[in-house]
């Protein structure tokens, strides 16, 4: 039963990792931008949530009402103001600029919130649990997983069922021809980044409720997000969810074998997938 428990808990943890990864996957899919600052943007979402909670006394989940639009606006401005200028035939400038952004964000966190670990208090939600078939499942992990599934389904819907998603795919396919359709790619990229950071805001708040975070917490989240994206296969949103679950299960099973193995087991699972299926488990079927 302990093993079943480890697998179930790992699956639920995978939901959080999928949320870390979804924004990353979306950005790469639409504009081939590898965002090194993604982990720090997740932490930015957590800090913004913390600020709203402290200022208003709202429940952290209600803080989403403020944090999601704020992050979306930051995303649009960031893309139009800075990142669009780095995109071109050379893949190096966006890497360097987002790396620099990562450093800047971490220092801003340090200035604004000190190096002390912070956490959002979600009250009884943090400890509430339900018993299912002899397993005790936390309500927060269950809720996180449900939100992850809903977010992925929502993104999938936007991508494949709406005019905006059609525009995302067209610009991703061929930027030049997409312009001929009257699409301003700078604006489309801005909208994609806004959407990605809206998802990142959700990930950040859930992170900040689940664990404590500090100004340097972004790096590990970036790695988890990357691993989930790569395991699942680039450009496949449901694959990203499965990638997150595989990473989560590997970590909890690893921790079950030996508590010191938690992170290592996740990375090993990633390397094994990469060695066997370099394109990930479910790469987008190229059209």
């Amino acid at each position, binding site marked *: 039963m302990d093993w079943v428990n480890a697998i179930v808990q790992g699956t639920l943890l995978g939901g959080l990792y999928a949320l870390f990864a979804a924004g990353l996957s979306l950005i790469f899919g639409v504009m081939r931008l590898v965002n090194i600052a993604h982990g720090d943007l997740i932490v930015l979402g957590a800090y913004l949530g913390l600020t709203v909670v402290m200022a208003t006394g709202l429940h952290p989940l209600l803080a989403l009402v403020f944090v999601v639009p704020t992050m979306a606006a930051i995303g649009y401005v960031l893309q139009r103001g800075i990142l669009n200028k780095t995109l071109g035939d050379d893949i190096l400038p966006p890497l360097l600029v987002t790396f620099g952004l990562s450093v800047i964000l971490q220092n801003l966190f340090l200035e604004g919130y000190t190096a002390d670990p912070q956490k959002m208090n979600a009250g009884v939600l943090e400890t509430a649990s339900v018993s299912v078939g002899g397993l005790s499942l936390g309500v927060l992990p269950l809720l996180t997983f449900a939100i992850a599934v809903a977010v992925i389904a929502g993104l999938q819907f936007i991508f494949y069922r709406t*005019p905006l998603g*059609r*525009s995302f*795919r*067209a610009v*991703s*396919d*061929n930027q*030049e*021809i*997409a*312009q*001929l*359709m*009257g*699409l*301003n*790619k700078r604006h489309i990229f801005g909208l994609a980044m806004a959407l990605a950071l809206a998802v990142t805001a959700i990930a950040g708040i859930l992170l900040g409720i689940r664990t404590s975070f500090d100004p340097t917490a972004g790096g590990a989240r970036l790695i988890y997000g990357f691993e989930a994206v790569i395991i699942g296969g680039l450009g496949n949103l449901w694959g990203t969810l499965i990638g997150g679950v595989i990473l989560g299960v590997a970590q909890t099973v690893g921790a079950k074998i030996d508590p010191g193995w938690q992170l290592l087991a996740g990375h090993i699972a990633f390397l094994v997938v990469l060695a066997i299926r370099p394109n990930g488990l479910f790469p987008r079927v*190229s*059209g």
Partner: protein
Amino acid sequence: MPEPILSLNRLEAHYGDFQALYGVDLEMHEGEVLAIIGANGAGKTTLLRSVSGLMSNAAAQVVYCGTPIGALRADEIAALGIALVPEGRQLFPSLSVEENLLIGGRLNREGPWSLSAVFELFPVLKERRAYPSTALSGGQQQMVAIGRALMSNPDLILFDEISLGLAPVIIKSIYDALPGIVGDGMSAVIVEQDISKALSVSDRVYCLMEGRVSLEGPSANISREAISRAYFGVA
């Protein structure tokens, strides 16, 4: 004489250090079908790229309905009513046939063209509307590319080598559809390697040679000798 729908004034275009167009002058009026012929590398595609905004020029070098558009972006020019059917079709592979057409219509310009009108022009596309665009034959892909451009209800449509790489029977069926497209007053520029095809569908013809206009005149009564002189630069 009414204002020309399109005029090029000493149009120059460069790819880095390489100059592709050397002061091209061109004028066309509403409802006209213009053919542009010339050997490979004469600058035909470059000319269309400049008009559609894929290449940036000095503003006054390209004037559309009295507005200098040479320096505008491609999406701004598309919104003004110029559509390009690009060389090599260039459909969006991750979009279905219908989605390729719909994205062509996202500008919502008023006019006769809609999804159903395109399906009426090319009935085979209606059958295959849900297919990925990559699953179609070359000729069907060309129909999608033309339909996609029509969906924006352009006032001026630019065709770049629409017969390239297609079987003669397919080329014929596509050219047979052309009068139905340009018949109701739409202006068109047709870039074509096949000179007799180009002459048969156009009102006037421009011949480019090494980035310059080497011949210009009505398609109906232009002599073969004049064309081959303008095409190859030999008497």
